[in-house]
């Protein structure tokens, strides 16, 4: 009998194939939590080249992957089991979707024959997440895994990034296949910017009497910070930033007029309401930035640069739209010069008039001043992650960012509980950075369990906890807009946060007096392991200015007239 020369194809499990597909897409770090239907994948994880970080709640894993994706500009990966594991990821997926963050989510699913039978820990996570993913898959064959993983990474990372979910039934992850791997997919080339539109934009900028730029999160996402700075230096256009645009221009740049919007700076909001031409770069007219839309920048024509055609004229009609990568568009728009140098002087005047002040009489430690001091203590190489609430707005107002990736904040979704897992993701993405999580007493409790993750892996995060014994931003709104009818906002029965941290094995200190701030910040930043600084602040302190809902941006409140 003739001996066979054919080598039998090597059969491997779906989980082994998945792990190799992830490795081939350059994944080294994943965040997750094991459970029933994802167990074959956790089995294959042992001895693989992937470093898995066990978070202590799936939401923590998803939010850590989100921040990892923001800082690396590559998809962060998170993994969980079916049912509650998958539903616990949902907030993190929505967070990534709203802020255009690349993420790949892998969920276990009950075996294919059981799907649709209300099996134990079965939920339709594919259906639940349809509105909050860029795309999603249910894997139906072991041999589809490499192709699906490649496509998921390409989709998550290219164009306007976003989360992509892969739902993996247990019969597929445990089944056998003999796949041929194909290389990861190249990103599809984006359309080049339209030459005629760039020419029109340049002419409009040259002719405008009061032109202004809004810099958004898209500039960091597309790695266009340097090109944007060159554009601003070349043109001398005044610039305001959205929350997610903070850091695209250095805070001391003479063209910078500050952050616009509900808690923006007076200079920025006056500039935007008075401009006659608005060039919007990688931003989407979010309602927290525009205030009352119909009265937003009422005299301005609009030039809108974005890679996503669906953002053009969604909320404000664009007179000129350039749908492309931002860098070539910014390089191609070459206005002759500014027609009206007086406008720059006016913006500079507003910047001076509305400069932040730190001398207001306050009880105890003044959080804005403390945050300014934090930035001064570590002017370079610090990344700040935020939770959501008053402290988040104070960070945006008073910390100084030299790069947008130094400021990791949940913008679109406003996810309380983001700060601590985000700090984990940011630190693992950029180990050389000093990573400070600025949190509040409300937010920290939403993912407090991740203190265990810090301890478990020795992740060096500095937590600055601003404790006003209240859900401060809600309390502020109840004070101003609900006639002081406080409803479910008082947290005077908070735990002893320093003791909580110590119970997790994290060093901690508490301060209450302004004189203690300097030493305490030194201690926090120079401790060589994770540490928590608990800062008691006045529970009645408010974030100013505030554009009331339904009002245009220049109608800022600077205090509560009822007090």
């Amino acid at each position, binding site marked *: 009998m003739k001996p066979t020369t054919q080598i039998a194809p090597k059969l491997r499990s779906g989980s082994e194939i998945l792990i190799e597909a992830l490795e081939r897409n350059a994944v080294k770090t994943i965040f997750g939590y094991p459970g029933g239907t994802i167990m074959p994948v956790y089995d294959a994880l042992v001895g693989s080249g992937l470093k898995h970080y066990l978070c202590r709640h799936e939401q923590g894993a998803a939010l850590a992957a989100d921040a990892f994706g923001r800082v690396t500009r590559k998809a962060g990966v998170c993994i969980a089991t079916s049912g509650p594991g998958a539903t616990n990821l949902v907030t993190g997926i929505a967070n990534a979707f709203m802020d255009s963050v690349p993420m790949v989510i892998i969920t276990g699913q009950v075996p294919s024959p059981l799907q649709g039978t209300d099996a134990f820990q079965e939920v339709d996570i*594919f*259906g639940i997440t*349809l*509105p909050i993913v*860029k*795309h*999603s*898959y*249910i894997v*139906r064959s072991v041999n589809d895994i490499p192709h699906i993983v490649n496509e998921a990474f390409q*989709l998550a990372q290219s164009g*306007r990034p976003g989360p992509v979910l892969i739902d993996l039934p247990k019969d597929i992850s445990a089944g056998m296949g003999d796949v041929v791997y194909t290389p990861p997919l190249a990103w599809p080339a984006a359309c080049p910017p339209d030459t005629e539109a760039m020419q029109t934009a340049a002419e409009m900028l040259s002719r405008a009497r009061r032109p202004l730029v809004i810099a958004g999160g898209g500039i960091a996402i597309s790695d266009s910070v340097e090109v944007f700075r060159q554009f601003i230096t070349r043109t001398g256009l005044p610039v305001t930033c959205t929350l997610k645009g903070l850091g695209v221009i250095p805070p001391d740049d003479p063209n910078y007029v500050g952050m616009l919007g509900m808690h923006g700076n007076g200079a920025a909001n006056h500039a935007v309401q008075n401009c006659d031409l608005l060039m919007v770069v990688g931003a989407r007219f979010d*309602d927290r930035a525009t205030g*009352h*839309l*119909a*009265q*937003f920048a009422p005299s301005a024509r609009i030039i809108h640069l974005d890679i*996503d*055609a*669906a953002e*053009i*004229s*969604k*909320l*404000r*009609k664009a007179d000129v739209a350039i749908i492309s990568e931002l860098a070539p568009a910014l390089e191609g728009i070459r206005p002759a010069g500014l027609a009206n140098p007086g406008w720059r002087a006016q913006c500079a005047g507003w910047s001076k008039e509305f400069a932040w002040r730190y001398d207001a009489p306050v009880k105890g430690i003044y959080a804005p001043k403390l945050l300014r001091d934090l930035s001064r203590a570590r002017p370079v190489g610090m990344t700040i992650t935020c939770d959501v609430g008053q402290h988040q707005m104070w960070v945006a107002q008073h910390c100084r960012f030299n790069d947008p990736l130094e400021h990791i904040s949940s913008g679109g979704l406003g996810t309380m509980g983001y700060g601590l897992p985000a700090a984990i993701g940011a630190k693992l993405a950029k180990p050389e950075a000093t990573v400070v999580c600025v949190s509040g007493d409300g937010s920290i409790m939403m993912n407090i369990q991740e203190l265990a993750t810090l301890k478990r892996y020795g992740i060096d995060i500095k937590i600055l906890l601003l404790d006003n014994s209240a859900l401060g931003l809600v309390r502020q709104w109840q004070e101003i807009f609900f006639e002081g009818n406080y409803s479910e906002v008082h947290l005077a029965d908070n735990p002893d946060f320093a003791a909580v941290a110590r119970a997790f094995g994290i060093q901690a200190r508490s301060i209450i007096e302004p004189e203690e701030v300097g030493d305490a910040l030194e201690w926090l930043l120079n401790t060589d392991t994770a540490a928590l600084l608990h800062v008691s602040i006045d529970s009645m302190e408010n974030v100013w200015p505030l554009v009331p809902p339904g009002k245009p941006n220049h109608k800022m409140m600077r205090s509560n007239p009822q007090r």
Partner: protein
Amino acid sequence: MNHILSIQLSGSAGAVIRTLGLIERRGFSLGTVSVGNVENGGRVMQVEVSSTRPGDLLKRQLERLHDVLHVELKPAGVINPRRPDLRALPGEHK
């Protein structure tokens, strides 16, 4: 404003529900919907929609979906004039 959308879809699981879900979520009310198969395993869908929101914006929102291969948008007569769930966009369109 009422429109008829002709949408070519990939044959992926969930493509139809993903597309219809986006249409409703983005503030368009669904009228008649018909779905058919095409030779390459894909689907073709004809959808009547009504909204105060601009149809070309919906077209661009649909074109973002990976499952959507092609969208054609045509104006249509009155389809469904008294739907209570139509939502206007904030502010005036300038």
